[in-house]
């Protein structure tokens, strides 16, 4: 016990050395200032920054701490460090019953700030992959989760690939039944438009052969160490307000090889090669 008290004493002494001013206040609680001031080994009780006559010595301090410790030991209730940690959510309902926004409030604020997807629940994107078995309770059948527990990071193309059920990898199995109209109209037509023009949808007319950003999308898809799933880097870069640094490396010159082919009676000029050269790098910053 004495060792603990001495350690407390040393701690407050260190605070004094750290502050360097023996009259600094340490605000504890709200509405009033309770100040412990060390002065020549004494602890004084001060109010409003004025020194009072209620100075106590180290022995008195130890006594106070001993009394408080006795009270703590005698209490029938312990104080929970993390309040609410035993208030369990009921998972028996359909869909996800865990409020994602408790931890991801910032994402909720982004979604609800405008644009598209403002009325779509988290689970409609993050618990909808047919390739993933999520933890769930369906009709009292407990499914512990396989490839993911509560949520997965999914590709934008999961919804925007233009495939129709059952071709799509999308599953409604884990969704709340009340969320239908978030993604379907009253005739149950899917509202998510296909991201055509990259040659990635089943539409035979979707060739993407002329798409200026196709290499961007394809590179986002094939990069093994990519930041996001599928082509999401490309989708996110354009369709959200995310900041992006784009490093371009562009040719500033063409090298053209021109040969004059000839014999005595016939000749022609032949352009045999056109090659881009003199590449320069530059960076675009999307704010």
């Amino acid at each position, binding site marked *: 016990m004495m060792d603990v008290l001495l*350690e407390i004493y040393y*701690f407050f002494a*260190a605070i004094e050395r750290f502050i360097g001013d023996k009259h600094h206040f340490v605000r504890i609680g709200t509405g009033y200032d309770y100040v412990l001031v060390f002065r020549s080994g004494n602890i004084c009780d001060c109010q409003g920054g004025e020194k009072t006559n209620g100075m106590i010595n180290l022995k008195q301090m130890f006594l106070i701490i001993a009394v408080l410790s006795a009270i703590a030991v005698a209490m029938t209730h312990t104080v929970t460090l*993390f309040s609410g940690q035993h208030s369990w959510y009921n998972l028996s309902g359909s869909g996800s019953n865990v409020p994602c926004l*408790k*931890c991801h409030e*910032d994402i909720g604020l*982004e*979604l609800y700030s*405008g*644009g*598209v*997807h403002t009325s779509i629940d988290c689970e409609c994107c993050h618990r909808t992959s047919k390739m993933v078995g999520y933890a769930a309770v369906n009709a009292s059948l407990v499914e512990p989760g396989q490839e993911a527990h509560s949520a997965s990071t999914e590709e934008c193309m999961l919804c925007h690939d233009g495939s129709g059920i059952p071709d799509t990898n999308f599953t409604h199995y884990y969704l709340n039944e009340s969320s239908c109209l978030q993604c379907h109209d009253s005739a149950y037509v899917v509202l998510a*438009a296909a*991201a*055509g*023009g990259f040659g990635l949808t089943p*539409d035979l007319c979707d*060739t*993407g*052969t*002329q*798409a*200026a*950003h196709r290499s961007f999308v394809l590179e986002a898809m094939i990069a093994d160490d990519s*930041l996001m799933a599928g082509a999401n880097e490309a989708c996110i*870069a*354009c*369709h*959200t*307000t*995310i*900041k*992006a640094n784009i490093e371009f490396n*562009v040719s*500033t*010159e*063409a*090298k*053209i*090889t*021109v*040969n*004059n082919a*000839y014999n*005595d*009676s016939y*000749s*022609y*000029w032949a*352009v*045999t*090669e*056109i090659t*881009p050269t*003199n590449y320069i790098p*530059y960076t*675009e910053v*999307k*704010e």
Partner: protein
Amino acid sequence: MRPITFAIILVGLVSVVLLLTSTNVFSLLPDQHKFINIDNPSNDIDCVACHSRIRAELDNSDLHGNLSCEDCHRFEGTGISFAEGGSLATAGEEAHAAYTPRCLDCHDSDGATVAGEYATPARAFCDANYGCEYSAHKALVAKANESSMSVGENEACLVCHTNYSCELDYTYFKDISYSLSNWSFTSFGCSGTRDYTANWNKSGAKHVFLSLDKIDCTKCHENIYDALVIGTPKVNGDYLTHSPIEIHTSGTGGTDWNTNNPWPFGGPNYHDRYHYIPEADRATGVNSSYCYECHNVNKYANENLADKTTYDLGDVTSDTYSTQVHCAEALWCQTCHGNGKTKVVIDNPEQLNTGHSGTNFVDDVTSDYARTFQGDICMGCHEAAVHPSDAQAICTRCHKFGNADVTIKSEPYGYATNI
């Protein structure tokens, strides 16, 4: 307590407080869930956010500066289906947000109206097979179309019409030699290979489009410019290929070719020569307009009405294919000079109908020798190069009897001997 122990405890306490008071986790990439509204038809994504440099280039461009990104890169005249938002959203087929346009998509034979302005057809190159075989740059455009560097023929368009730089590595013959006997060839040969590199250094910006007057022929054809302006320096007059002089041995002016033009011997049509530029004017006078004097007679005539009258350029145009080419015609002296041409071959009066005007000499050059040699065959004499010291005896040898032994170097030099 040591300070380091104290610091660790303090940081730990602060961390615990933060952990206990914050229920949120922090997003690694903020704003990735802040989706842009694409409810409007056409494009709602701000191209300039990622392509500000290109917008800045356009803002400094002589042409196309008034166009938006969408005007070109979502041009509707191609039949390409782009992704569009709005109540009737379309997915996009050949392209999603944008495509890389072919310049001829707008500048084809029909032209196109873009942003309220008519994009004029790229004459000749917008036609099937890029106009006639006399289009000087047809090989460049055809190769550009074949190249995978850019779509369509854009490489060719860009190097001339924008600030995209170009380096041209030419390979051609070094010199030719021939002998004449009474205006008939007794020998002909070429030798050597000349490598020449021309650089048209510009800023490199492909979206800075040049006004037509800034397209400088002499940059890509610097070897010809040098042949016209510098040539092979010599004490009594440089040897300048590509700049023919009129040869005469009598009449006013003598051989003072720089300042006098006696042709046709002080008669009513006495005038400065069409091709020749006095030495003092060469550095500035050899420019694109000078090139057009021969390589696009129709254009030059329309832009220089006084010369059109003076030199009968209306008739000369009919000898050329200049109305069927994009900017320049591949031609040679015989295009305008020869039997049946507006500018017939003439001789001094004393050789009338006996010199090279009285034979099929010029026509034979056209039919018997490769295009690439024909101009230099003429220049072998019309450059009036090195003559032997015994000029009196030799004059008649060539000027009267049509006997000559000629060697001439190709551009950019032009040193020639004519004995």
